[in-house]
């Protein structure tokens, strides 16, 4: 494909360039604020990995939210509202109990498999439900997530892992150092796949009739999408912990601004995802300085408010 035959509108609009600029500023702030004195050593070993981790995790989680919303065709779903994240957490506890001290990669793969199974279970349950009320879909997911969480907590309680579990399930970048975040580059690769396949996901989001008419292989798109979502959720849980609601907030905001055509929306989703996580992390580092509030907590508060806003807006519109 040559450049000349590309439609004009796929060239990045000025706004997107501005957005990238804004993200760089946030990233610079994120690199520079902090307690310890600054040196190249600190920057290289701790600050830069942390900032890169935030950018990668933020972009990937937001993109996953969009993929899920297109594939499930529901505005309210994202990994932390359908049980994917909780299932990844369960996987992490199980592998820690079965093979203590297993390498990060093994933990990640186990968590990813559990995440996949959890998501699959969610889709089965949703398919079996006769009600097609959109609001019920995330409620089913939240209940499913609750059940999985309870199992995880039960296991952790019996094996004296509650403290560890708590740190895992709260997204926190303060422990991100060189050598402990590199798995996150894997999710960058997955985001690239999502970009390449963007149109497939949009067509899938148009529903089964339109997918069939367009000749899209709906099942394989669903499979690829859920694999991406599961692996990203697992990597993020294993490396930094849970960042709830991010995948809910960002795609909904982007949808209101530029619509749901993934080819147009995805760059924005990735950009805003990174930006929001960076901002939440900066806020978390500043409010109780010199202590830190984990980014997962900040996002949890923000996300819960946003989720409520979405629900209320919907019920007002209905």
């Amino acid at each position: 494909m040559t450049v000349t035959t590309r439609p004009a509108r796929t060239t990045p609009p000025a706004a997107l360039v501005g957005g990238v600029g804004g993200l760089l500023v946030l990233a610079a702030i994120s690199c520079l604020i902090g307690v310890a004195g600054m040196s190249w050593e600190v920057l290289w070993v701790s600050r830069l990995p942390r900032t890169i981790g935030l950018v990668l995790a933020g972009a990937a989680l937001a993109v996953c939210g969009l993929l899920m919303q297109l594939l499930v065709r529901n505005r309210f779903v994202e990994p932390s509202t359908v049980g994917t994240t909780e299932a990844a957490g369960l996987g992490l506890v199980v592998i820690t109990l079965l093979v203590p001290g297993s390498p990060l990669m093994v933990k990640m793969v186990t968590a990813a498999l559990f995440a996949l199974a959890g998501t699959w279970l969610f889709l089965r349950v949703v398919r079996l439900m006769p009600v097609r009320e959109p609001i019920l879909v995330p409620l089913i997911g939240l209940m499913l997530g609750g059940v999985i969480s309870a199992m995880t907590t039960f296991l952790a309680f019996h094996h004296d892992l509650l403290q560890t579990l708590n740190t895992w399930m709260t997204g926190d970048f303060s422990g991100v150092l060189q050598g402990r975040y590199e798995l996150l580059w894997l999710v960058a690769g997955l985001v690239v796949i999502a970009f390449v396949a963007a149109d497939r996901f949009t067509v899938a989001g148009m529903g089964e009739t339109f997918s069939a008419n367009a000749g899209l292989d709906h099942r394989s798109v669903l499979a690829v999408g859920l694999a991406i979502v599961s692996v990203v959720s697992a990597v993020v849980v294993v490396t930094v912990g849970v960042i709830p609601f991010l995948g809910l907030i960002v795609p909904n905001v982007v949808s209101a601004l530029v619509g749901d055509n993934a080819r147009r929306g995805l760059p924005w989703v990735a950009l805003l995802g990174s930006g929001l996580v960076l901002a939440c992390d900066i806020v978390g580092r500043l409010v109780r300085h010199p202590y830190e509030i984990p980014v997962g907590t900040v996002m949890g508060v923000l996300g819960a408010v946003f989720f409520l806003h979405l629900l209320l807006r919907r019920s007002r519109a209905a």
Partner: protein
Amino acid sequence: MTATAETSARTRGHGVRAEGVTKRYGRSLVVDDVHLDLPLGGVTALIGPNGAGKSTLLSIVGRLLGADAGRVSVAGLDVATTRGDELAKRLAVLRQDNHLDIRLTVRDLVTFGRYPHSKGRPTAEDLEHVERALAYLDLTELADRFLDQLSGGQRQRAFVAMVLCQDTDVILLDEPLNNLDLRHAVAMMGRLRDAARELGRTVVVVVHDLNVASCYADTIVAMRDGKVAACGTPAEIMRPDLLEEIYGLPVRVHELDGQLIATYYG
């Protein structure tokens, strides 16, 4: 099927061919052993009362729904066995009720009509098709609006534009005139007839207005209770006795300006 239509089908290939198509929901037979043979090129109007099975038949032909028995081939391809992406280049179908959960602009929607050809990487040629389809259905002004910002008729035209943009040999449209005003309904039927005459497309439309069927179709297929009750040219179908039997309503047929016009009010 008339003898002339059959010969032309043999010489020019089949547009749509259905053999013994049957569909049941529970105990009720909604499509009952339907045989159809539509030649390549031409407009076919599918008429019949509510619940006659028109949409069900169209969905089966358009591979949106599986049949319980029978075979369907479209442009020479068996719809049950041909790969979806191959079929999408030859066959396009639009349902009676269309709803999108996602927010797309009109131009985006129509561009997705090119998906079977472009796989999401529209070339300059694809984009030409898009602009032409937009202009064809009087949507150029509305192209950058989101679908949820359109009126019912405007939205209907956008969906039809998408299907026409797919540029397939066979086009199946279930009540495409829904919500359209007079001018746009006439324009759309004109477009469909042009597509059949000039580009050799096989167009099957479900319509409720007998006079639209009479004036624009080459073939009329009348359904009742899941069966094909009659099939023929407008002159063969636009007969008071036959129409009364199908609709259970007295229908008069008049010749006006060289067209057969049915009246049934009052």
